[in-house]
């Protein structure tokens, strides 16, 4: 069973990596694509003799502001209802129904935008760029799920997030991911969050939106790379519960930490746990913590020493990771269009490239001084370098804390939902015999009332 699971997981992650690499073209390729973009653009026809004049393009009216408020209200209502269904009603079927609604409203109807995950970038950019005014609805989409998580746990993930909903729906044959692997894979999400913040802060790119794997499905159009990436995630999602949410979602990283502090949260049983073990394998997301056995004394001593060593190594690890990531700053700075343009212009100026791309031709046509462009690009490079040091430090801290976390010996006596990892989907409820007792009591109460 375990071997079969490993094989599935290996295939799944191979597919995801293939999807990601296929969606991230290498630097020279991107230039090529950029050049092709001009060629592929469909030129207007030549009406030399007929004298026909092409009508000037009309701009469609922007979406009315009122709908932004409607979105915000729908989000608030959905979060409130999700919290009620998860904590009070404890109905998996109702949660599923709400998540289908969210998928259609926030996904297919609203085309996946605004979404709380991508809103991280708008908020970060508004902090670092004074000229950028973040829209009200984006602030609401960013803050509301955080507030609800702080009080009710990850009810947003349970039934409001369209990305989570689409993955939840395709989950057919869940395969358990070993906890050690899950812990390692979750590092991707931290790295993704850090990179997204870095790129947004420097104005380079909104990578969460650019590489949103499900946006093509919501919009029924998109680049082939992203379609393949989304397809890979859904294919993997048939066997592994919500792979994007668990291992990549940058917003999920923030929600995990807030959920640890939440005032009310999901409990598997509505009453005391009787340790029947029926719920043990019910969670496809590996978010049920089983009771621990007593730690052997020898291991306890060893882990104390390891913990002390890791605490000493903490600053070294942070610095080492910061330095390591900073070495990649030049490459990362090329995500910024200005640096990419300067790079291209430099190639053309030094004769390494003779053809112009659309971007470089447009630059030459402006008549701007190349030195000004280079100075601007150098400034961005410096900012990205600083950001890379911080990103590396952040990753070093996360790695160190994870190592420390796995060296701390905790004791647990009941089966309980993982405070951080529980997505509040409600699948575990029906496995608990105490839940059935509760439901029967409810029915009885209704019967008595009648």
């Amino acid at each position, binding site marked *: 069973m375990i071997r079969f699971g490993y094989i599935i997981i290996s295939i799944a992650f191979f597919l995801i990596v293939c999807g990601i690499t296929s969606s991230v073209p290498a630097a020279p390729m991107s230039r090529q694509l950029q050049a092709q973009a001009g060629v592929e653009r469909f030129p207007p026809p030549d009406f030399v003799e007929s004298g026909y004049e092409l009508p000037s393009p009309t701009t469609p009216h922007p979406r009315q502001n009122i709908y932004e408020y409607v979105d915000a209200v729908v989000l608030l209502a959905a979060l409130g209802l999700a919290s009620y269904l998860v904590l009070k009603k404890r109905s998996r079927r109702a949660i599923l129904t709400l998540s289908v609604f969210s998928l259609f409203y926030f996904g297919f109807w609203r085309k996946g935008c605004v979404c709380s995950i991508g809103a991280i970038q708008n908020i970060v950019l508004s902090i670092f760029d004074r000229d950028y005014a973040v829209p009200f609805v984006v602030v609401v989409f960013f803050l509301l799920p955080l507030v609800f998580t702080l009080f009710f746990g990850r009810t947003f993930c349970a039934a409001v997030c369209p990305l989570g909903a689409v993955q939840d729906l395709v989950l057919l044959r869940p395969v358990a991911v070993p906890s050690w692997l899950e812990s390692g894979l979750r590092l991707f999400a931290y790295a993704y969050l850090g990179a997204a913040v870095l790129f947004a802060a420097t104005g380079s790119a909104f990578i969460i939106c650019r590489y949103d794997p499900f946006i093509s499905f919501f919009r029924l*159009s998109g680049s082939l790379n992203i379609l393949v990436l989304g397809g890979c995630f859904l294919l993997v999602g048939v066997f592994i519960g919500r792979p994007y949410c668990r291992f990549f979602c940058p917003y999920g990283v923030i929600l995990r930490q807030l959920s640890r502090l939440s005032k009310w949260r999901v409990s598997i049983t509505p009453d005391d746990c009787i340790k029947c073990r029926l719920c043990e394998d019910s969670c496809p997301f590996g978010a049920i913590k089983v009771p*621990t056995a007593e*730690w052997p004394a020898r291991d306890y001593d060893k882990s104390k020493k390891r913990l002390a060593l890791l605490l000493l190594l903490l600053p070294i690890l942070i610095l080492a990771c910061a330095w*390591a990531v900073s*070495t*990649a700053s030049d490459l990362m700075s090329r995500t910024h269009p200005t640096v990419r343009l300067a790079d291209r212009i430099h190639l053309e100026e030094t*004769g390494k490239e003779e053809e112009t791309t659309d971007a470089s031709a447009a630059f030459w*046509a402006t008549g701007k001084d190349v030195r000004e462009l280079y100075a601007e690009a150098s400034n961005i*490079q410096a900012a990205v370098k600083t950001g890379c040091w911080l990103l590396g430090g952040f990753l070093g801290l996360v790695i160190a804390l994870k190592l420390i976390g*796995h060296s701390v010996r905790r004791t647990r006596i009941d089966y309980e939902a993982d405070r951080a990892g529980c997505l509040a989907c409600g699948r575990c409820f029906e496995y608990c015999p105490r839940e059935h007792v509760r439901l029967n009591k409810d029915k009885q109460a209704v019967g008595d009332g009648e």
Partner: protein
Amino acid sequence: MKPRVAESPAPGRNNDSVEVKTTNQWYQTAFWSAVVSAVFSLIVVGFLMVNYLQIKVFDPVRAERLELLKLKIIDHPDDVLFVQIRKLDLQIRQDRIRRQNFSYRASFLLLGGLAVFVISAKLAVTFKKKPPRPQPYPDRQKEQIRQAIQARSTITVGLAVLGAAVLFFATRPVVDFSEEPPQKGVWPRFRGLGGLGISASTNVPDNWNGSTNEGILWKSKVPLPGHNSPIVWGDRVFLSGADANERQVYCFDALSGKLLWRGNVPNLAPAGAEPVEPGESTGFAAPTMVTDGRRVYAIFATGDVGCFDFSGKTVWARNLGSPDSAYGYASSLAMYRDLLLVQYDQGAAEDEKSKLIALNAFLGHTVWETRRPIPNSWTSPIVIEVSSRHQIITCGDPWVIAYDPNGAELWRADCLGADVAPSPIYAGGLVFAIEPYTKLVAIKPDGRGDVTKTHIVWSNEEGAPDICSPVSNGELIFLLTTDGLLICLQVTDGTKLWEEDLKEDFFASPSLIGDRLYLLSQKGVMFIIEAATEYKELARCELREDCHASPAFVDGRIYIRGTKNLYCIGNLD
């Protein structure tokens, strides 16, 4: 959704078996629905992929064919070709729209198919769901220790992956934008960078012989005549040539001399315009071209301007109107960033026909034009930088006028006369302008308005060239008259230091390479003279072909245009 169970009066076992049977039927229905919807979805995906391939593979091929036809029609207008282009164009558009529509509809079908599949598959899974049967407890103690070790190992592996990525990224080449890019061999306009006639090359040959071909790397015939000078960018040499019927731009390979391409500039003069008849001394292609490293620009005596990319493709072409010039239009082009500068002096001053025109280099439209109170002239504008601001310096009768790159006039000095042909230069902080046969004037370019009385630093009236432009190393300025008198003056005050009669005729302007002057006579003899306070001839090399154009000096090579051939002189190593 839970399947409805058929109610049966029979108690016990019979009831259970009916329920199992009914559940099984529901399972079968859900299962086969899932299979059918999966097959349907796969078929739709197949159609979508074929459609995508058609868009990505077949359409670009046809679009390329259309582009080729469009290029063909520029050179050979033909009604059949027109019809062919229209037909192909329409076909491509119709197919494109049809495929887009197909793609849009198919994606809905796919979505529907997948929705049915997901619902059916979920139901099938639900019907086959087994109740949990917890296995006997493993050794929890061992298990949790093992899991903790594995988790730490995984994170350590993650750390190692980060390290490997660092090694990978650290080896990637880095572009430092703060560094000056290495300047490749360029001679981008008439008289090279800045129009000063100065080359940074120092290893320029000083020995060749046209009769034995010694020192001559290659020699290529230039198809059409022209007095314009060669310009060079990297491994490409550009020239133009024209006669009454054709106007052409040539690109030669700097290494082999092979003619890589020739581009035709069409006659775009409005119908009914009087044909231009330039003098023999200038011809149809006297103005030198200019390049910005990506495109080349040429202007002809007919007023036709053409822009080509480095592969020879026409980017744009237009006609500025037939210039009214006594000897034929001869001012060379200049560039400032994206502006192509055309000094279009013509007619008499009172005709108010003269203007300085700035064209958008990439698109060809006029960005601005400024009227000039000047009759026809034959000088070429230069762009200089004074106190971090750029100025466009122009000469004519009687004004030396400086313009801001936005077209506004900055200053003017009344100091010239007659048919002005020598171009201005900028050296030692002074602008030098020449009135043919009469005088050399030095002007400080930091004034505003009419600076005739305030900024003319000195004027030397001991003779001056009528065609050749001057050259200066910042301390000394050298003048070369058409009849071969070489004059050396001091930059600071215009004091004449020496003069020498070279006893040859000269049309090409002198060039300064290091501390040596290169003077190309009309008969093709290159005089190499020390650029010093005393006259000293260093060498004299013959080409054996008449020369009117100024040579280009790039990377230790000299490109000389004779009346019929283009020469490259240099060392094989």
